[in-house]
């Protein structure tokens, strides 16, 4: 039961870099090996380009018109961002309502859990009818619905996560409801919120691309992938897929960075 020494910031940061390096090299190596295998297999078995282009070809295609691809990626990404911003905000709001009025929770939360398991992307064609199949609104709508339910479920679980003792403590201070919410329930829900946001970052990028398969402006990633694949220009399709991965990853990493900044007490928690 000895105290963990509270190290100085400098020591801690060196420690962290070393730890980070140890964590990062196995996946990086695995990734590079996988790419090399892919490249080798394409050349060795002379796989025709319309079936599977080599990574080097995909990269070359991307480098021919990087700004064009990143540009159409941005159109799709901004839909994902907008949709998840709406969906997640509403999810948080409704979760707060659920805690305040438990009868809302009793009715809504089981349905929300069920809805999290439903492939909401199937709504895409209908959203197209309601909001215009080419419009950004129909994509944003699908993504908002997709991200709303998991956020609601997760944040609600977080808001009711404080244990009885933690609540009794507040009671013993004769804390008003507002203080219980702001100083106990809300911070307790933060890790749950960020879990949801990380899931939604991934989900929204998938939703944005797939929703565009059902129609969208010509300068959007999903439309581009679909049309290029349709005429067997697989290098172009793959390079667009690569861009979709890139945006998805960046979105995810930005959420992780915000999470670390907002919850400094969590950072070294996992190490224990």
């Amino acid at each position, binding site marked *: 039961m000895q105290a963990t020494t509270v190290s100085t910031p400098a020591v801690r940061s060196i420690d962290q870099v070393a730890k980070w390096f140890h964590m990062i090299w196995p996946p990086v190596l695995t990734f590079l090996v996988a790419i090399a295998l892919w490249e080798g297999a394409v050349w060795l078995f002379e796989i025709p380009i319309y079936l599977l282009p080599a990574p080097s070809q995909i990269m070359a295609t991307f480098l021919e018109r990087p700004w064009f691809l990143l540009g159409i990626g941005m159109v799709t990404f901004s839909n994902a961002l907008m949709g998840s911003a709406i969906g997640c905000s509403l999810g948080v709001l409704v979760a707060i309502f659920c805690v305040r009025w438990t009868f809302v929770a009793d009715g809504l939360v089981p349905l929300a859990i069920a809805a999290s398991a439903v492939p909401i992307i199937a709504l895409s064609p209908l959203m197209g009818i309601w909001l215009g199949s080419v419009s950004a609104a129909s994509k944003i709508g699908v993504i908002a619905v997709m991200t709303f339910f998991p956020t609601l479920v997760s944040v609600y679980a977080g808001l009711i996560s404080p244990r009885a003792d933690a609540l009794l403590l507040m009671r013993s201070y*004769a804390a008003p409801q507002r203080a219980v919410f702001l100083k106990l329930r809300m911070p307790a829900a933060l890790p749950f919120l960020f879990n949801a946001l990380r899931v939604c970052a991934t989900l929204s990028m998938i939703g944005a691309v797939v929703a565009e398969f059902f129609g969208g402006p010509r300068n959007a990633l999903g439309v581009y992938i679909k049309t290029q694949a349709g005429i067997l220009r697989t290098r172009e399709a793959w390079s667009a897929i690569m861009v979709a991965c890139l945006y998805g990853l960046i979105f995810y990493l930005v959420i992780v960075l915000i999470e670390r900044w907002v919850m400094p007490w969590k950072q070294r928690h996992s190490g224990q």
Partner: protein
Amino acid sequence: MDTPIIEFERVSKIYQGGAGPVTALHDVTLRIAAGEFIALIGPSGCGKSTLMRLIGDLEQPSNGTVRIKAKTPDQARRDRDYGIVFQSPVLYDWRTIRKNVELPLEIMGRPKEQRHQRAMELLKLVGLGDFGDAYPHQLSGGMQQRASIARALSFAPSILLMDEPFGALDEITRERLQLELLSIWWEAEPRPTVIFVTHSIPEAVFLADRVVVMSPRPGRVQRVVEVNLARPRAFETREDPQFFALVTEVRECLRATETAG
């Protein structure tokens, strides 16, 4: 006895369980003077935690009256008369140790400067002066429990309720913290009345002015053992023949409750 700070007048507590009503506490009458250190001891199911919770207005009696400083427990709670320490430290893990100690003061709307100063003062008192900026998970169980004692004392409550606070700690840490608790309590100004729930006979005798021995099914007060060991108590107190005699007395008393029950 001076005017009691805590008064139990024929108090009973009955829970409506699935298998019919369960009497957790039966006809308890008890008076506790201001500044006393009271230990509640007994086998599980004897209602010692229930008794503590009735004082703290965490539960309400089914029969009889509880008076705290001649007020209802509810009023006393609203007047912030209680500091509570649970078996687990219940520190909020998103707050540093200092911010945890400041929490009650924050809720009570004390100015920032005063909060900060008071928290540092208390952390020094419990031997955590250098750990104010650490997060709870960076401290050992014993240190976390010290922080939770500092938090309970931060707003200088007149009554300190402790529900098996050292129950989850190892024996060595436990004995050290008992001694520290006594000196913190002795030095605190004003000195709070302490209600200390425990399973440990030596712990009860070492800490308390009076040990309330309780018996189960239904929970009631079996006997109250006066502990007239000199204060301030020290490490050597545990080796005093009188200490052994009192431990034996409480033990015999507990055995009597078992054969009776």
